[in-house]
Structure formats: structure tokens, C-alpha cells
């Protein structure tokens, strides 16, 4: 784990090499370092961290989507990076607006991102630009909507409890 100082050093390095607008924020919370980057430069930042940085992060452990409702920008993608050599972890986070959920794909640098980006697309509707085969992976292919978004109805059937038994019409039949 990079500590708070190490995170600031990484952020300064990325700002220096990738661009000043790439890093939005740094968060150090409960000994976990998070580097928040702009969605457009996610791929550049990950390429730099994997291949060109002095202290590299060579493995993508996980990629997942988040919905921050009611905060805005609402959607997020987390990239959990790991350096096998130094056993250090870094979380790269990006957030985008619900009306423009587009983020560049990182499949060509981290092949493991293929299925995980498809999953994030499946459940959150995040568009990964440049993904070789972006289609649903877990839900049926004709499914409508993105069910892990927090404004999506949970579905299923109404369950009769004592508090609502008289609100469900003619339930006793």
C-alpha cells in the first residue's frame, strides 16, 4: 500500500507525465489509496502506471462499476491495481455523468478486463469505448435495462405482509 505521501507522489508523477487534467482527486481513507482520474484519460493513466512508471502496477485485480446515486457524477468505475513485486495496491477510480457513461476500454493492456467490462456494461450500462466485444455477459441478451443502477426497480412480485395486505387488491383470491 502506498501511504498518503506515496499516493501524492504517484499523483504528482501522473500529473507530470500524463497531463495535469488527468488527476481529479486523491483520497486516502482507511489505509487505502485512491487516485481519482478523469474518464477520458483513464486509459492513459493505466498505461503509464503499468508500463512507464518508476513503480509499476502490473496487475489488474478487479474492475467494477458503481452507482453513486444521489451523488453526481453518478456512475463510477473502479480499477484495483496490484504490484506483484512490491505487493502494493492502488485503486484508480473514475466517475462520469449518467447521460454520458463513456470510458475508454483497457482490454488491450489488461486482458482480464474483457469480461469485467462486459459485466459492468451488463449491470450499469457503462460504455467501454474500444472494447472488442461489448455485449451482455450474465443477463439474457434480450434483457431491457441495467438492473444494478440504483433507480432500477428491484423486480419480482409484491409480497403480502400484514402491513400491506389490504393494499394489494383481492389478494385473498
Amino acid at each position, binding site marked *: 500500500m502506498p501511504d498518503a505521501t506515496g499516493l501524492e507522489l504517484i499523483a504528482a508523477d501522473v500529473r507530470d507525465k500524463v497531463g495535469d487534467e488527468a488527476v481529479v482527486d486523491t483520497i486516502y481513507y482507511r489505509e487505502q489509496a485512491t487516485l481519482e482520474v478523469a474518464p477520458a484519460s483513464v486509459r492513459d493513466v493505466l498505461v503509464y502506471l503499468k508500463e512507464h512508471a518508476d513503480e509499476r502496477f502490473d496487475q489488474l485485480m478487479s474492475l467494477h462499476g458503481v452507482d453513486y446515486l444521489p451523488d453526481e457524477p453518478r456512475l463510477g468505475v473502479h480499477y484495483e491495481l496490484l504490484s506483484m513485486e512490491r505487493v502494493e495496491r492502488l485503486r484508480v477510480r473514475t466517475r462520469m455523468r449518467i447521460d454520458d457513461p463513456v470510458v475508454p476500454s483497457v482490454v488491450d493492456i489488461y486482458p482480464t478486463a474483457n469480461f469485467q467490462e462486459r459485466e459492468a456494461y451488463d449491470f450499469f450500462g457503462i460504455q467501454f469505448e474500444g472494447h472488442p466485444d461489448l455485449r451482455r455477459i450474465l*443477463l439474457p441478451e434480450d434483457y431491457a435495462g441495467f*438492473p444494478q443502477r440504483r433507480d432500477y426497480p*428491484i*423486480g*419480482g*412480485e409484491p409480497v403480502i405482509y400484514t402491513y400491506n395486505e389490504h393494499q394489494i387488491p383481492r389478494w385473498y383470491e
Partner: protein
Amino acid sequence: MDVIRQRLDENGDPHDLRVRQLRARQMLRGELEGEDLEQYVEQSVMLTTLEKAQNWARANAPWPLTFGLACCAIEMISMVGSPRVDASRMGAEVFRASPRQADMIILAGRVSIKMAPVLRRIYDQMLEPKWVISMGACASSAGMFNNYALVQGADKFMPVDIYVPGCPPRPEALLYGVIKLQNKIKGEPDMGWRARYQAEGTEEVA
């Protein structure tokens, strides 16, 4: 040591084993005639209908399909594999890997919307007569998964004969369901599930 010798008395109790042995010997020699012969035949020949015999045979060999959907499948395996609850006592241990050879399907687990067409297809491939056991809360009513991804009860898209409650049901409970199914098979003449559930007109046209 005293040896008790008993005489074979052909006029003794007709249920006594020795008397029955003696009668059988006489019958084979052709010595039984008239009322004795009729009585002998009455005692040793059982009459039934072909239908009942057929249902008896079917009920005692309900071969399930090898198909597990989720965690209930582990209990289903325990019903077959453990010596404590031995499904072969009911003739239900021969799990068939092909729906063409299976008599019943045990829905062991939750049925997702994506899995439902697969299940329905497998069910349609099974030969008549066929039966369905819905095992556990999830297959019967989606259990705790009241959400967008699961079918709320497998009977929404296929007929179910026996519901076994539990989360998961113990192997004993599933075996009890198998026994219930056997009684159902023996108890009613086989009509096929369309007649059983008034489902004429649902035949699939290829």
C-alpha cells in the same frame, strides 16, 4: 437333544409353510383335482390390470435427470450418494445424463430468467410419461430472491408435480417427495401432463 418331528398334514392350516409345500408338490405331480386345485390357483395367482402393473413398474423406477441448478443440488447428490438416505431403495438413484432416458426432473435450485428457456427445452425433450419435483424454496417460489433476475417459481413455465419445501430441504425430505411422487404415479392412471393440468393446446409446433 430332543428333535421335534411334525407330520405333514395336508388338511392343516393352509397358510402353514409345510402345508403349502405339500400342496405345491401334489400340484406338480398332477394329484390335485377339483376344489383343491381351484383353491391352489386362487392362492398362488394374482390378478391385476395391465395399467396398474405398468404404473407399479413406473413408480418403482423414476429415473431422474442429472441436472442441478444451485446449492440444492448438493442435497440432491446426498440423497443418492449417502448410505444413510439411499435413493436406490425407491429406484430413484439412476441419474440419467440424457433427457431422453429420464422419467423425472428435480429442479434443485433457483431458476434464473436466463435458465428458464433451457429448462423448458430439456423438459420438452423428455419422453412421456414425465414428472417434475420442485426442490426447495427457490424453485417453488424464488424463495428470498424476489428480484429482477429470477423466475418467481418454476411452475410459471413448466408443470410441477411435487413441491419439496426447505432451504435447502434435507435429503430425507427430498426422498419423501420421491415417495409422494411414487404414490401419485401409482394412484392415478397415466394421462400425460397435458391432460393432468388441462393444458391442451400448448403443444410446441416445430
